[in-house]
């Protein structure tokens, strides 16, 4: 029976009981609004829509992501419940009032013999639409005087939805997340035994489960890496029972996947090609590695100077950048409380003059203050490696902040500092402040 099929899909008996008895007898009334929440990929949409299709109940499934305006939502609902003629009755730019009026008009001709369901996925986006939309939909049964129920699906809890002056409280239902054991039993691969596949999933979960529990991500990773896992079997280097060898083969590969494919630094296609190439030496160039390759020579120094300006307090400049500065009193800045350390609070703004002063002392050759230097600063702002702080009309003392991380700066330093001691000086100066 269709209900039995759905039971198999649901991962607890509890949710299944509640859900199938809520939708139990369609000629009877259903609660006006039901709110179903749970993590992504726990099966909310799938179960509800399958249940409604199998039981052949009249329903409209609308994803709020597609509904840029409320009118699209109304149109899709009327289309699914009553057909194209009713959707045509809506005026241009319909409001909730028009929707209720048309609904009442159409449903007077087609009274409901069974409960009509309106399923709204990604319901959290309803909060950003007109303010009356969400409270109106929760009360739709009362407003249209018809046997209709609105089901909202979301991954965000109901407490974040409630309007200020309150609303009709829906029935809350939680879709629990999959347990590890359940995930292990979900998939299988036709060309290999289920035991082999479940040992593969076990290894995969061992690496990824403590980081991510999203079923879609895990499935994607499983699909991408299975061929690499089966490589020793194909080549005949190992047998199915030799899990230790298979593990040794796949585990570093999965760890590399965590740094690249999981973070979407490389695409799945690139990942697949890399597996086939088999050259261990070619490190995959991720997206973030491409960011700092092509800066001009002075721009790199400008960026280093900007970083130093952002993270050093101004009074330490003399100590770092002026030769023969003499003794400096040991201030308490080195013993600052950890929280207020600059590296936790973020970059501080600095004026242009300070940037140029540090720049001239950092660059090893003599530089004339030509317009090209200033235009490189503007280019850095456009590239969002520096951010401009304050108003655009402050022409004489513009202020900037450095918007890149320490790793980026160290990578640049490696490129520009031919002289090893200069590099060490820079890294020492930066290290002192971390």
């Amino acid at each position, binding site marked *: 029976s269709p209900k039995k099929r759905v039971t198999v899909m649901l991962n607890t008996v509890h949710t299944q009981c509640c859900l199938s008895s809520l939708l139990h007898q369609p000629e009877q*009334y259903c609660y006006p609004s039901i709110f179903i929440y749970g993590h992504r990929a726990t099966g909310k949409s799938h179960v509800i829509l399958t249940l409604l299709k199998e039981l052949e109940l009249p329903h409209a499934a609308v994803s709020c992501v597609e509904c840029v305006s409320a009118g699209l939502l109304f149109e899709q609902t009327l289309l699914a419940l009553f057909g194209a003629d009713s959707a045509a009755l809506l005026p241009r730019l319909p409001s909730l009032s028009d929707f209720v009026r048309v609904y009442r008009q159409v449903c007077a001709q087609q009274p409901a013999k069974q409960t009509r369901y309106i399923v709204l996925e990604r319901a959290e986006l309803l909060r950003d639409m007109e303010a*009356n939309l969400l409270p109106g939909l929760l009360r739709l049964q009362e407003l249209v005087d018809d046997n209709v129920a609105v089901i909202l699906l979301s991954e965000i809890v109901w407490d974040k939805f409630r309007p200020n*002056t309150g609303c009709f409280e829906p029935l809350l239902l939680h879709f629990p997340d999959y347990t590890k054991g359940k995930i292990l039993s979900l998939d299988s691969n036709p060309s290999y035994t289920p035991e082999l596949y479940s040992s593969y999933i076990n290894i995969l979960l061992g690496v990824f489960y403590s980081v991510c529990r999203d079923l879609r991500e895990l499935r994607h990773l499983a699909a991408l890496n299975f061929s690499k896992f089966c490589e020793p079997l194909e080549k005949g280097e190992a047998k199915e029972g030799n899990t230790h060898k298979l593990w040794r083969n796949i585990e570093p590969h999965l760890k590399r996947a965590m740094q690249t494919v999981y973070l979407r630094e490389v695409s799945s296609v690139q990942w697949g090609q890399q597996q086939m190439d088999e050259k261990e030496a070619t490190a995959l160039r991720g997206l973030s590695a491409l960011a700092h390759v092509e800066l001009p020579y002075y721009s790199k120094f400008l960026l280093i100077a900007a970083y130093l300006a952002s993270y050093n307090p101004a009074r330490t400049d003399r100590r770092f950048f002026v030769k023969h500065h003499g003794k400096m009193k040991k201030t308490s800045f080195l013993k600052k409380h950890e929280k207020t350390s600059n590296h*936790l609070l973020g970059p501080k703004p600095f004026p242009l003059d300070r940037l140029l002063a540090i720049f001239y002392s950092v660059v090893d050759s003599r530089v004339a203050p030509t317009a090209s230097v200033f235009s490189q600063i503007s280019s850095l702002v456009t590239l969002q490696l520096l951010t401009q702080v304050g108003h655009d009309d402050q022409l004489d003392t513009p202020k900037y902040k450095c918007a890149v991380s320490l790793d980026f700066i160290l990578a640049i330093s490696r490129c520009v500092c031919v002289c090893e001691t200069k590099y060490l000086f820079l890294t020492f100066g930066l290290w002192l402040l971390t």
Partner: protein
Amino acid sequence: MSKRKSREAHLAVGDCVAQVQRILRERFCHQRLPDRPVGLESQYKHLLELLRRTAVHGESNSVLIVGPRGAGKTMLLRCALRELLELQEVKQNVLQVHLSGLLQTDDRIALKEITRQLHLENVVGDKVFGSFAENLVFLLEALKRGDKSSSRPVFFILEEFDLFAHHKNQTLLYNLLDVSQSAQAPVAVVGLTCRLDVLELLEKRVKSRFSHRQIHLLSCMSFCQYLDAFRSELALPDDFPDSKFSQEWNLNKSLFKSVQEILQKHFNSCKDFRSLHLLLLLALTRVSVSNPTLRAVDILEASRMSSADSKANILHGLSVLELCLIIAMKHLNDIYEGEPFNFQMVHNEFKKFIQRKSHSIHNFEKPVVIKAFEHLLQLELIRPVDGGVCKVQREYQLMRLMLDHTQVMEALQRYPQCPTDVKQWAISAFG
């Protein structure tokens, strides 16, 4: 004695259960009107009297029904209208216009709706009016009966009355209340609202035209009355086909004795009928052919479901890395007394834990930790302080944790296979 066929019919258990479900669902889900409003006698009399004076004697009136959500404002009004419409002269004469603040968000839309509900679209046709007032007066004139002596009485019912007060210049309210003050036509303006401070929202000129008559529905039910309500809401009506079944169902002594504690908990948190109906509906879903009577365990389960903490349920499904980040944020909140934090600070706390105390958590790279942090942001468990202005790098954007200390600790207790070092870290005072 010849055995007469018993007048009491006996249905099969399945049919009985189906009938029970139908009757009770109509009561809980569709908010079917009770025969008499419970516990609201004086308010009911007041409202009925007011409406009758307009309908029968032609007196204009305005009144506001004020009460929290689920108190029974709409129910009270509908019961009063139902009783009033039993009188023949009222039924023939009185017109009703139902407006809702949720639907009619504009005075222009409201006016169109009034025209539509009074069936005067043809009369208005393509006329253009100079102002709202002219339009309304025209509509009311058109309702005059043939002998032009008096207009038909109209009831204007405004649900979500407080939303009408947010319209531009409060034109609709001004004009409706103006009509109710002047002797033009007998109208009754009934507003329903959940805001106690609704009068503060009205402009001075609108407030002066209002009669300041308010009917308050503040629930003053005692626990005994609540128990009686529980029993009566579950009671099957006398005309139930199988009287033996309905008698058993209505009496159900074992149930009523053992659920007092659960009901006390519900009564203490929320004592209106709407939440009672929700609880009973959840319990009702467990009634089936294999379980044809309501048991205490059904009410217990329903109570547990309706009072579950949603955020704790969400925390249950987080990964260990995300949970560690939440614990790090909790520690930051404890140390710095709720000041906002940024990702760098959280990452710092997390790194301290990894280096000093942990042996089961791997030292994940920074981008992986950022991805976990962003997942928490998408779940709205943390929120940016200034609404997400993007001038700051994302690692330095200040955030707040939307959970409190006890929620985190309770979630940890329930977390499946939580590593012991993580638990220890959470419990320890100054990470």
